[in-house]
């Protein structure tokens, strides 16, 4: 549980500025993006970012609040979770 990596998922109708908006928040608080992948899920835009909060200036809770607000502004749903939630479920 020592890792500080989180997974940010963004799901919603595609539009200009989604990546810029989210990446901006992360950069502002010294959160490093390690990987970005993107797909179209049915008609929805789905993007997954893996980021490192090791040197973040804010807590995960604060980040989640910022991302939720940004998501409302952009009309997409954004969630951020610790990567163990995924590792535990899918990897033995």
């Amino acid at each position, binding site marked *: 549980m020592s890792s500080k990596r989180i997974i940010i998922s963004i799901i919603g109708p595609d539009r200009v500025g989604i990546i810029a908006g989210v990446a901006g928040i992360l950069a502002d608080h010294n959160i490093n993006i390690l*990987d970005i992948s993107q797909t179209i899920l049915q008609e929805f835009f789905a993007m997954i970012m893996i980021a490192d909060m090791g040197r973040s200036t804010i807590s995960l809770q604060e980040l989640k609040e910022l991302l939720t607000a940004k998501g409302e502004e952009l009309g997409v749903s954004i969630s951020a979770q610790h990567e163990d939630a995924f590792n535990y479920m899918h990897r033995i």
Partner: protein
Amino acid sequence: MLTIEEILETIKMVQQENLDIRTITMGISLRDCAHPEARVACQKIYDKITRLAANLVEVGEEIAQTYGIPIVNKRISVTPIALVAESSREEDYLLFAQTLDRAAREVGINFIGGFSALVHKGFTRGDHALVHSIPAALAGTERVCASVNVASTKAGINMDAVYLMGRVIKDTAERTAGQDGLGCAKLVVFANVPEDNPFMAGAFHGIGEPECVINVGVSGPGVVKKALEKVRGADFGTLAETIKKTAFKITRMGELVGRVAAEKLGVPFGIVDISLAPTPAVGDSVAEILEEMGLERCGTHGTTAALALLNDAVKKGGAMASSYVGGLSGAFIPVSEDAGMIRAAAEGALSMDKLEAMTCVCSVGLDMIAIPGDTPAETIAAIIADEVAIGVINRKTTAVRLIPAPGKQVGDWVEFGGLLGRAPIIPVHKISAAEFVRRGGRIPAPIHSLNN
């Protein structure tokens, strides 16, 4: 590296299919709180619970935030109060129930389990006092849950206790008549009770358990149903395999949450209870899983076989996911708490007799079933006797949580709200079993060298 599909699958399970950690339950031993003065004992109980569980709710919420998975309930189970209170001269244990209630309110949890007694082979003075205090305790507190173990495979069935519980259930219903007999929703009668069950109302901290422990109950009937929708028409092997894989994933989440919670609270991690527990929400129903398997309505012929398959596959998947599986582990079939069960009961597809048959193959028993308010105590006792006999003979846990709703008849409904849900009154047999129940004594333990 995780694939995008895996990540999306997890998110979908949580956001659309109601996957949740149903409960984190902190088990607390109160054995060291016994004292000849009831007031001193109660003070020790209050102090110990509020000290050990001070951060329980906060830690639960923090974990839910970090991993993005809802943790619905944070609860506490304690040593059966009959054992703790017996050292006191008190004859009425209401004071102990009120203490548990106050401690629960102080730490911010909604239920505390352990107003309990184990009487499968006979009563002690403390057991008698506790059982007789149950109606007043459940009517006079908000968060306390009670349970009584009246039978075990090794001891047989304590029929005196069974009859007494029939009367206690009636009395509890009467005292909470204004809320459709809500008190009975907080009272479970068991056979072969597990000591580490994190699910209310039957949770208590068994005497073989450590000082303090974190047990976790996972649940995701919606996730299992969605998985089965993708294999419509496939054979039973595929069906079982699909449930197994899904149960594995659900249980892994429980294992993670349990371990993190235990670490943060500085207490040992106990078990994951790998159960499918429904809620009244649409899409979170065990009955709907059975219907997805191809039954037109839960309760029709084939239901028992479908439930047996489901229960076994859940256990197989869960056992692979966590080495510390315990509690009840399987599928819960509480009527009032499951949208599909409610519908089946309202349509008359689901009868008391079918429910009883289903309990032979699932993890609990006759759970959250509303029956007519004028049902005699002897009939309730006879229903309990039938159900615990199933547990005793089949070496499994069974339980009874019946609500004889005061003043209500078949065709009426009870409404409890929240997770306890709502249910139509189900008919019971009118023909008396009073002579049978009144015999008293103990039904001997079964022989298991001649199995059939």
